[in-house]
């Protein structure tokens, strides 16, 4: 099709609106934000002063607390992603490869429905569950265990909970597409279940997991509400940015550059693995 005359014109017509929108509305905004990272704030009025300085970045690089928070945020995002992958794999496997027909449809609906329930409401529900007298502790008490209480662990659990459908969906789609013959060929050549999972299933779902991780990882990286609700005394990058937004926009902008850089690197890495096509 691309060889027809006028293909260039048609391409331009197709591409111009979305690109204009994304470049103007989005990249433009990001550029404005990142530009303001090089400005500074009048400490007296907290008005932005447009003088060029790299102080904000120097601050961020030299203040140990920012590094601690950034690393903690990264750790939590990674933990959430891993937890989601571990949970999503068997569930998606069951849905795609064991469940059939009606059951499969019901399961899919069941997985998608919570997306509508309201992020804050779900986080608050977890707050109640994880409390001192909440049902988590009540359920664990007979085993002589205690729940994690509020804190980083709770943040990981709740974020993993919130983003789980975003991981299940692509993994399910990948498993569903996996040809049955490949699994049979593996068994036929002497591989047991574990071996087949490792050598045939895992490579096929890897791009899907990476695709799901684009959501779980980046949504976790920027979250600041869940941590307020169940984080106890934990603070993440999102909180630090949020606390600076109104006070010192340039500093907040400079801080924003940290997750932006992390995610752009991450996207570039997973794109190579074909993840963006598996979304």
């Amino acid at each position, binding site marked *: 099709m691309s060889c027809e005359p006028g293909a260039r014109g048609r391409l331009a017509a197709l591409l111009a609106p979305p690109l204009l929108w994304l470049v103007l509305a989005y990249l433009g905004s990001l550029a404005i934000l990142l530009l303001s990272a090089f400005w500074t704030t009048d400490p007296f009025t907290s008005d932005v002063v447009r003088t060029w300085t790299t102080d904000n970045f120097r601050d961020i690089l030299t203040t140990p607390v920012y590094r601690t928070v950034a690393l903690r945020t990264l750790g939590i995002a990674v933990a959430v992603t891993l937890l989601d992958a571990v949970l999503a794999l068997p569930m998606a496997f069951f849905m795609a490869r064991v469940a059939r027909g009606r059951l499969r449809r019901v399961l899919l609906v069941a997985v998608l429905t919570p997306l509508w329930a309201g992020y804050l409401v779900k986080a608050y529900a977890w707050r109640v569950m994880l409390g001192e007298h909440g049902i988590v502790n009540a359920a664990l008490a007979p085993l002589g265990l205690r729940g994690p209480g509020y804190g980083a662990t709770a943040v990981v659990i709740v974020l993993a909970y919130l983003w789980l459908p975003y991981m299940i969906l692509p993994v399910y789609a990948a498993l569903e597409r996996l040809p049955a013959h490949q699994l049979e060929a593996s068994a036929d050549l002497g591989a047991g279940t574990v*071996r087949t999972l490792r*050598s045939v299933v895992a490579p096929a779902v890897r791009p899907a997991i990476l695709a799901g991780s684009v959501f779980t990882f980046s949504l976790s990286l920027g979250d600041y509400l869940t941590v307020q609700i169940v984080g106890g005394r934990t603070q993440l990058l999102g909180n630090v940015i949020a606390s600076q937004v109104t006070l010192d926009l340039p500093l907040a902008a400079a801080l924003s550059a940290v997750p932006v850089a992390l995610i752009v690197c991450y996207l570039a890495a997973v794109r190579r693995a074909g993840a963006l096509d598996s979304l």
Partner: protein
Amino acid sequence: MTEAARTDARPARTGAAPAVRLTAVSKDFGAVRAVDGAELALREGEFFSLLGPSGSGKTTLLRLIAGFERPTAGRIELAGRDVTALAPSRRDVHTVFQDYALFPHMTVEQNVAYALTVRGVRKPERLARAREALRTVRLDDYGPRRPAQLSGGQRQRVALARALIDDPGLLLLDEPLGALDLQLRQEMQRELTRIQRATGVTFLLVTHDQEEALTLSDRLAVLDRGRIAQIGPPLEIYDRPATAFVAGFVGTTNLLRDQAAVRVVGAPGTYSIRPERIRIAAPDSAPGPGERCVAGRITDIAHAGAHTRFVIRLDAGDDRLTVLRLNSAGLPDAARIGAAVHLLWNVNDAFAVPG
């Protein structure tokens, strides 16, 4: 009685237990009986084919032997061992799938070595044997490629090498040539024969192409709606079909029933006359001894290179006979559409078929 019963009575070629023995094997999918009471015994080292139309249960039979399906009833033995309830990974059988089912994320070499990898064979040995297997299928230099970078015929050979690498007792092939075009298909048929002879592995080939089954196999079984209609060597199947279905499915034939049989063959029943057995002669020619002669007119001539196919409408009744003629010399002048001709054949060539 089918051929299977007779086969069992004979001692297997090597004197050992048959490579595969099916005893009264049936498989139901819900209400559909895909395989119905199959009895089959394959000799060590033979090239055996399953022939039958679409939906006749060929694939299901193969999958039962490989272990991907469990039979509803009956018993499956491999080299004398009952494997009816064994997982595929524990059977000494490999399969070449119709779509090859190569692992797309592995190189050709890794694909071929897979059976060794899962058995924990060390890398140097694995590689050496994978190279050897690739040499057998003439893909020596293709080890580092990915399946996506190969042509259809090359992929098929990789699948073959992968299945042959650890000398399985039995190789199952489910229409491995179905997706290939004619030229490649013929080339791969020659390859299959060569490799089977070189390795001595028992081959069980599923196909719906009768010419393929006839030329490649030592013996073959014809399936008809889940049942084995006949088992035997190609010549026997072609020349002495056990049922009208086999007669019609294997090769083309002129099937004559009831009144048509009376008119053409001269006796009631169902008769088959192969088109190549009929001779076209001038309208004035008389039958020789032991020959039968009928008169008719040519209604269609299809020239297909090496041979020509004539359709002749007989003067008595509305019966049509197909006649095959090799183009060894120019066509006789008489052979034009509309020409009146006599058809001659040896009375032995019209044989009665049951049902």
